[in-house]
C-alpha cells in the first residue's frame, strides 16, 4: 500500500531553513560585546577559515534558503574569501542559490571599499547589515566604536552603487550619556539614509565585559529603566511614522524588506550554524558549538564532531519556546499553525497565563492569533517568561 509522505514539522521547516556562519574576528574589540569574538590575527584567521571549510564539507545534509554571515566583524575577511565561502555553502546547502544572503559589516571605510561591495554583489551577497550603533560621535566613543558617523552614508552609497540596496543598520539605545534628543538625532540620521531595515537594540550589560565592570562601579552612568523605555518608545514611534513595520521586538522593515533569515528563527524553523559558538536547530535538537576558538578549530580540522552543548526540548518546554519566539513578532502566535505543528490548542493550554496577561494588558488574543500589545512589547521578558515557565 502506498504510504503518503507525512508532512512532518521538520519538513516544513526545512524548506525555509537558514544557514548561519560565524566569523569571529574584529579589527578591535568593543567593550559592551559578549559575542564569540577575537581581535584579528592573520594566522588565526587563516586557520579558522580552513576549519570552517572543513566543517562545511562534513556538515549534515540540510537545505537552506537564507545565508547569514555574523560576527565578530565578517568584513575583516576580504571579499574574495567571503565569496569563496558563499560558493562552498551554496554547494552544500542550496544548489539553486540562496534567496537571501546577508553580511554584517563594520562601516569603517577601510573595510568597506567599492571593490568589497562589487565582489559581494558578484558572489550573490544581496543584503548588508551595518553595525552603526549611533550617529553621535561621543556615543560611538563610549561604545568603543572607531568609525565616524559620516562613514555610514559613504558605505551606503557605495553599496548601492555596487547594486546592493537591501541595506540594514543596527542602532543601540541606552548608551551611557544618551538622551532622547541624541537618540532622535541618530534615528533621523539613519532615516536620512533611507535604509530598507533598522534594528534598535537596548544596550544589554553582559557579564564579563568591560561594561559590566563599569556598571558595577558606576551604575548611575547608565540609562535608567524609565529612560530606556522612553528611548524604546521614541524609536518605535519615529520608525513607524517613517513607514517601517515594527515586525519584531527589535526590528523594523520597509514593506517587503524583513530579514528572512531572522524571521526563520522566530518561526521556530530549522537552521544550521557553522563556526565557533554557532547555534543550530536541526531535527528538534538545539545545539551550540563550543565558544573557545582553538577547541573549535582543532575539532573542525580533525573532521570530528564539534564539542558544545545540545538539548532536545519536549512537552511544555518546547511549546514555551515556540510561544516565546512567536510572541516576539508582530503577527504573534498563529493559533492554527501552532495546533497543526504541536498538536496543542494554544488558548486551552495557556488559559491561565493568557487570562493574567490579558488582564494586565500585555497580550492581545483573538481566535486566530495571540500577540503582544504595545505595552507587552515593553515587558516582553515578563510576558514570554510566563509562557516559558508554564508547565500546563
Amino acid at each position, binding site marked *: 500500500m502506498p504510504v503518503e509522505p507525512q508532512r512532518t514539522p521538520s519538513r516544513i521547516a526545512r524548506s525555509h531553513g537558514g544557514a548561519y556562519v560565524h566569523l569571529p574576528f574584529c579589527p578591535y574589540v568593543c567593550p559592551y560585546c559578549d559575542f564569540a569574538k577575537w581581535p584579528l590575527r592573520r594566522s588565526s584567521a587563516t586557520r579558522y577559515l580552513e576549519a570552517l571549510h572543513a566543517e562545511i564539507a562534513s556538515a549534515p545534509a540540510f537545505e537552506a534558503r537564507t545565508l547569514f554571515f555574523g560576527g565578530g566583524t565578517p568584513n575583516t575577511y576580504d571579499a574574495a574569501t567571503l565569496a569563496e565561502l558563499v560558493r562552498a555553502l551554496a554547494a552544500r546547502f542550496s544548489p539553486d542559490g540562496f534567496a537571501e544572503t546577508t553580511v554584517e559589516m563594520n562601516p569603517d571605510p577601510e573595510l568597506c571599499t567599492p571593490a568589497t561591495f562589487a565582489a559581494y554583489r558578484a558572489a550573490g551577497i544581496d543584503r548588508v547589515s551595518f553595525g552603526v550603533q549611533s550617529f553621535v560621535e561621543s556615543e560611538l566613543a563610549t561604545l568603543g566604536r572607531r568609525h565616524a558617523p559620516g562613514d555610514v552614508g559613504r558605505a551606503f552609497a557605495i553599496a548601492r552603487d555596487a547594486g546592493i540596496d537591501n541595506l540594514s543598520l543596527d542602532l543601540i539605545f541606552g548608551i551611557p550619556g544618551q538622551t532622547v534628543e541624541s537618540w532622535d538625532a541618530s534615528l533621523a540620521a539613519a532615516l536620512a539614509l533611507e535604509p530598507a531595515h533598522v534594528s534598535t537594540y537596548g544596550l544589554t550589560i553582559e557579564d564579563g565585559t568591560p561594561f559590566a565592570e563599569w556598571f558595577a562601579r558606576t551604575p548611575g552612568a547608565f540609562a535608567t*529603566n524609565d529612560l530606556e523605555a522612553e528611548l524604546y518608545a521614541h524609536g518605535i514611534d519615529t520608525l513607524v511614522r517613517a513607514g517601517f513595520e515594527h515586525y519584531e521586538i527589535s526590528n523594523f522593515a520597509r514593506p517587503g524588506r524583513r530579514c528572512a533569515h531572522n524571521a526563520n528563527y522566530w518561526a521556530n524553523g530549522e537552521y544550521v550554524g557553522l563556526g565557533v559558538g554557532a547555534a543550530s536547530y536541526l531535527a528538534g535538537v538545539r545545539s551550540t558549538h563550543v565558544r573557545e576558538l582553538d577547541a573549535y578549530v582543532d575539532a573542525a580540522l580533525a573532521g570530528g564532531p564539534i564539542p558544545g552543548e545540545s538539548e532536545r526540548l519536549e512537552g511544555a518546554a518546547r511549546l514555551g519556546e515556540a510561544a516565546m519566539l512567536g510572541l516576539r513578532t508582530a503577527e504573534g502566535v498563529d493559533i492554527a499553525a501552532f495546533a497543526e505543528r504541536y498538536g496543542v490548542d494554544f488558548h486551552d493550554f495557556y488559559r491561565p497565563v493568557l487570562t493574567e496577561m490579558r488582564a494586565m494588558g500585555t497580550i492581545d488574543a483573538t481566535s486566530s492569533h495571540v500577540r503582544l500589545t504595545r505595552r507587552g512589547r515593553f515587558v516582553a521578558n515578563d510576558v514570554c517568561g510566563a509562557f516559558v515557565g508554564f508547565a500546563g
Partner: protein
Amino acid sequence: MDRKLAVAHGPSGTVRTATNIRNFCIIAHIDHGKTTLSDRLLEFTRTVAQRQLGEQMLDAMDLERERGITIKMHPVTLEYPAHDGKLYELNFIDTPGHVDFSSEVTRSLAACEGALLVIDAAQGIEAQTLANYHLALDQNLTIIPVINKIDLPAADPERVKKQIEELLIIEASDAILCSAKEGIGIEEILEAIVARIPPPRGQDAFVRGLVFDAQFDPYRGVVSYVRVTDGTLRAGTRFMSMNQKKVYEATEVGVFKPDMRKTQALDVGNVGYVIANIKSLGDIDVGDTLTEASNPAPEPLAGYKPIVPMVYCGLYPNEGVEVSELRDALEKLALNDSALHYEPESSIALGFGFRCGFLGLLHMEIVQERLERNYNLDLIATSPSVVFRVTMTDGTIENIDNPAKLPARDRIALMEEPFVKATVITPPEYVGAIMELTQNRRGTLANMEYVADGRVILTYEMPLIEVIIDYFDQLKSRTKGYASLDYEVIGYREGDLVKLEILLHGDPVDALSSIVAREKAANRGRGLVEKLKELIPRQMFDVPIQAAIGGKVVARETVSAMRKNVLAKCYGGDISRKRKLLEKQKAGKERMKRVGTVDLPQEAFMAVLRLDEN
C-alpha cells in the same frame, strides 16, 4: 541558707556532705572568654586532650560558631588532685551566653553551689556580667570573680577590680587574674573552686534530683541531665517527676567523663544523666524534680518555672515548599529545643504555616536559620511580635501573639503589653545617643549610675516590642559597639496600642500588619510604606502601598510599573540562551511570594526590622 537544701517539712534524716565534690558553672558577658577558659580547665585536668578539644570545637554547630556564641555544651566532670592531696570531682555545668537564654542560665545555676564570674580585663563589667551576677546571687551561689585576658595590651585589671568592688560588692582581693589564652591562673582557679565553693550537702531520707537540662537522642529517647541534691538515684528504680507526676523506670544512669559513662547510681552532689524511656521532651519539664516513686520527697526543689516564649513570628513555606515539610522540620527541631513553640495558623496572604514562639530574637534567628540550612527550606518569616494581653468589653482576656488576630477596636476594653527592665552599660560619651534612642522606643529612665572608672549604667523600663524591633543593633551602631544590653521581663502594662495595617492594591495584607503605640503609628506607617517601596521590585503594573490605622490611610507610596524589560538581541539564533535567560528571570520571581497579583520578596515581610526610624 542554701535553699536547695532546705527541708522544711521533711522527715528527720541525716544530712550527708559530699566532701570531694564541687559543682560549679561559668558565667560571663559574651566574648569575655568563657569558652576558652572552659577549654583550659578541661585540658589542665586532662579531661580532654588538646587534640580532642579541637575536634570537639569542630563538632559544634556551624551557626553557633559563626555567631561567636556557644549556646551550651553538656556538663562534664573534671577530676582534680588538689594541693591538699585529695582528689576532687568537679562538675562543670555550662551556661548559655545570651540574654535570650537567661531562663536556662538560671536552671544551670540551680544545679551548682558556686560560679566563676569571668570578666574581660579590658572591657570590664558589661550588662550581662551584672545580670548573670544577680542571677547567681539569687541562687545563693559562691561567686569567684575571674579577671580574664590579662595578657591583652589594653588589659586594666586594677580598673576592673574597682568595678567589682563598686558594682558587685565583692572583695576585689578575691578576684583571680587569669589569661585563659596563655594558660595563666588556671591552677589557681581550680584551687579556688575546691577551697571556696562549699561541698554539696543533702538529705538521706529521700531522693531528689533537679532536671537542669534534657536532650533528645533518636536512639535512646530523652536523656535528662540531673543534679542529685538528696539521696541516691539508682539505675533500675522507678522514679517520679514531681511537677508532671509521671512515673518512669530509670533504665540507665551515668556521668559525663566527658562522654556519657554508665554508673550504678548517682549520689548526693553528683551531676549526671538519667535515661528512662521518655519519648518526648514534652514529657519531662526542665526544672522538674525527680524523686523515688516508692518514697517520694515531701516537696519538689524550688525554682521550677515553665518556659514562656517571649517573641512570636509566623513561619510560612515559600513557593515550592510544602507546609508538611515545614511541620516535619519544626517537629524535629522541637525534639531538642523545648523552648520552641509552634502551632498551625493560616494567613490570607501566605496560606498555611505556623505561629512560632521563641525565647527571644536570637533564638528566633537560630531556629529560622536551622530550618533553612539543615532542612533546606525556603521560608517566609513575618515580623516578630510579642504577646499582647487584651481585655475584651465582656471582661474576657485574650492573649494575642499575632497582630492579624487583634479583635476589632470596639470590642476591646483594655490592651496591655509586656515590659522589660533594660540595663545598658556604656562609656559616658554615648549617654546622649542612648537616651535619644531609648526614649524614642518609649523607654523611661529608671536609674542612671556613674561608676568610678567612667562607666555609666542606665536602667530603663520599656516595652518588649520596642526592644525586639532592632533596638540592640541600633544601640550597638550608635555606641560604636561599646554599649552592652541586658533585659528581663517585669510584667504587663497598659498601652495605647493600635493595629497598623498595610494595604497593597487597596487590600490589607494580614501578614504585614503590626501592633504599635498610637503615638508612633503614623510615623511607623510612613517608614514601612517607604521601606516596602524599596523592597518590592517593580512589577508589570503599578502597586500602590498604603498604611492604615483603623481604616484611615496614613501613608501611601506607589511602586510604579516596570516600564521596560526586553531581551533585545537574537544572539545569532542562540534560542536556548534566550530561553534560559527568561527561565532564570522567572525562577527569580518564583522565590518571591505572590500576594494577590503582587510578587513580594521575603524581606518585605520583615521590613519593620529594617526601618531606620530614629
